[in-house]
Every structure is written in structure tokens, then in C-alpha cells.
């Protein structure tokens, strides 16, 4: 049994761990190994509805937090790559250079689903693209599930594409760190799967 006197320190540590995603480096420290590092860039297309709830996860926060999480988890491997997420407005027209994994972040309502579908449809001209879809802002799990199913079934039916469903991420709260780590892990696995099937161009820095 722990010494009760340690309890405040333990609570403090747990609390810090749960809010660590708030401490986001705008300019992550550069690893000075002397060797060029590989940079993985994932475009994040924003299918944000006008009524995106203010208390939902916000696009730029997602990009910052997820970038940090990806780089944190990547640092555990021998030659960690640099991960970069690039926020794209919905109007952005993709070029043929973007042949890799694309993340779509959408508001979990009907308008968000329609925006996400429009986005994926516009980007689907290049066959090798794969899409991960992440929702936020659902009032409950049922709405989140219906948004994912409606979008996935439509994309499969009309575009013949199987979406990688990355689930629903709520606004920062007690479970956010764990959810973010899970999301980063899934993105990492998706990236590796995608790389094994395609010759991806990487940028050396």
C-alpha cells in the first residue's frame, strides 16, 4: 500500500500526464544526429461545418496535438522520422503529387458528412490515395456511429473506396491523451501499410 503522503504527488503526476497534450511545441526540437531525417507529411483536409460545436475538437488544435503525438511515439524507434500534418481547407485542390495517405477531419453532423464526401470525391481522382476519416463534435456515440456509417457506405458505393475509419475524437478532456495516442498509432499503422504497397516519395531534410 502506498504511503498516503505520496498521494498528492501521485495525483499531480497523473494530472500532468492527462494534460500533456496541451504542451505543444510550435517548433519541435531538431534531433542533431547529423544524418538527414525522413519527413512524412500527411495532409489533413478540413470538412468543418459552419455549425462545428465550439466545445468540439478544433482543427488547428488537432493538427498540433496529433503532430506532437506522432513524433513522440516515433521517437521510440531507432531512426525516427519527422511527422508533419498539413491543414488543408476544403477548397484546396490536391495535386497529383499527393499520392499518399490523406486524413479528413469532419464535423459529426449531416453537413460535415456531406463536406467530407465532397472532399473525398474531389481527391479520389488519383487511385493510390487512401483516406482516413476522423469525426468530432457528435453529441453522443449514436450520432458519431451514424456519421461514420453514412460516409463509409456512400464512399464505398459511389467511389469504390474503402475508408479507414478513425473514429470520433472529443474535445480535450480526461480521455483525450489516450484517444490521441490510439489515433496516432492507427495513423502510423496505416502509413506503414500504405508504404508497403506504394513507392512513396519522401522528403529528406
Amino acid at each position: 500500500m502506498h504511503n498516503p503522503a505520496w498521494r498528492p504527488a501521485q495525483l499531480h503526476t497523473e494530472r500532468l500526464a492527462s494534460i500533456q497534450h496541451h504542451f505543444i511545441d510550435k517548433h519541435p526540437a531538431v534531433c542533431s544526429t547529423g544524418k538527414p531525417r525522413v519527413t512524412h507529411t500527411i495532409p489533413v483536409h478540413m470538412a468543418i461545418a459552419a455549425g462545428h460545436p465550439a466545445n468540439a475538437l478544433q482543427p488547428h488544435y488537432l493538427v498540433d496535438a496529433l503532430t506532437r503525438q506522432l513524433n513522440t511515439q516515433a521517437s521510440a524507434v531507432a531512426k525516427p522520422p519527422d511527422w508533419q500534418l498539413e491543414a488543408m481547407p476544403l477548397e484546396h485542390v490536391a495535386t497529383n503529387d499527393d499520392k499518399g495517405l490523406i486524413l479528413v477531419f469532419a464535423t459529426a453532423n449531416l453537413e460535415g458528412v456531406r463536406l467530407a464526401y465532397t472532399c473525398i470525391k474531389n481527391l479520389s481522382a488519383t487511385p493510390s490515395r487512401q483516406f482516413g476519416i476522423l469525426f468530432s463534435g457528435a453529441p453522443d456515440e449514436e450520432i458519431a456511429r451514424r456519421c461514420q456509417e453514412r460516409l463509409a457506405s456512400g464512399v464505398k458505393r459511389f467511389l469504390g473506396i474503402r475508408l479507414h475509419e478513425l473514429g470520433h475524437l472529443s474535445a480535450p478532456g480526461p480521455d483525450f491523451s489516450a484517444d490521441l495516442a490510439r489515433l496516432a498509432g492507427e495513423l502510423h499503422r496505416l502509413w506503414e501499410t500504405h508504404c508497403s504497397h506504394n513507392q512513396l516519395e519522401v522528403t529528406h531534410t
Partner: protein
Amino acid sequence: MTLQIHAVSEIDSSDLRRLVVDNLTALLGEGAQLVENMPQIDDCCLATSDTHDGPVLLSFDAVDPQRALLNGLVRLDQLGDEMAALFLQDYHPPTELLVLAPGAPPGLTLFGGPCPVSWRCIQVLSVNGEFGMMITPVIEETTAAGPSPLELRPTIVKPVLSSEEEQHFSQL
């Protein structure tokens, strides 16, 4: 009896605080209330919950909008601190900051990320020697100068869906 009304530039912080509390419903909607059991944070800040029970921090200044904004940001940061969570059960730190000031705080348009910051125009008046507060609706143009942050910008949907697609995506 005639009403003697004039603007007041100097008001004690406790009087201003009382005026804000008296006008919570007008500011945040029906059902808005102070958050109970919250430690005293500042003379010019109030932890409240709005009509949807959303935690909102109010920061007010009768004269200086910039001071109200900066003070509110500092207190908002403090209320998100882990210490508050240790002391209060079911604690939800404010995620919104509402600045109450006679003018728009400079730099307000830069906000719009995970911590929404908004502003309401207030004017403290003296009415026959008694303090009163006039709450002016914010005109859209005054707060939206410059480009909107990405997440707040309404997205234009191009009509690129076929009739079958339209039917599929007509409901969840």
C-alpha cells in the same frame, strides 16, 4: 421626474462585479449562473455556466478592453491548472472566455482555436446616481475584421453531388 443618465468611467471593481452578476441572464442566456464552490479568482473575473451549462469565464473592465482580455486569458490559464482539479470534485475548467468591455479588445480576431474568446460591449451608466449597465449587441463587422480563422469560416459546398449521392446523403 427626469432621469439623469451619463456614462461612468470610474467604478469600483466590486460594484462592476455586482452589475455583471445582476445581468448574467442578459449576457449568457436564461439559466446562466455563477459556478458554486469556485475559489475567488480575481475581482474582475467570474466563473459562470451559460444557458447550456457550458463553463464560461467572464472577464470585465469598465474602461480598458485590453486589460480585460489579458486578465481573462491569465485567469483562464490558471483555472485549467491541475491544482483546481485536485480541489474541486466534478471540476470542468472554463473553455470559453467572454470579455466584457466598452470596446473590442485588440487582437481578439486572432482567437478561435480550442479556446473560443468572444466579446460583448458593455457601458456603465449612472442613472439618477445609481449604477446601471448597458449591454450592446456586438455588430458582426466589429469583431470579424481581417480573415477568419480556418475553423470558424463557413465552408462553401459546391453542388457536385449526383441525384443518387444527394439522396444517400440527405440524412444520417
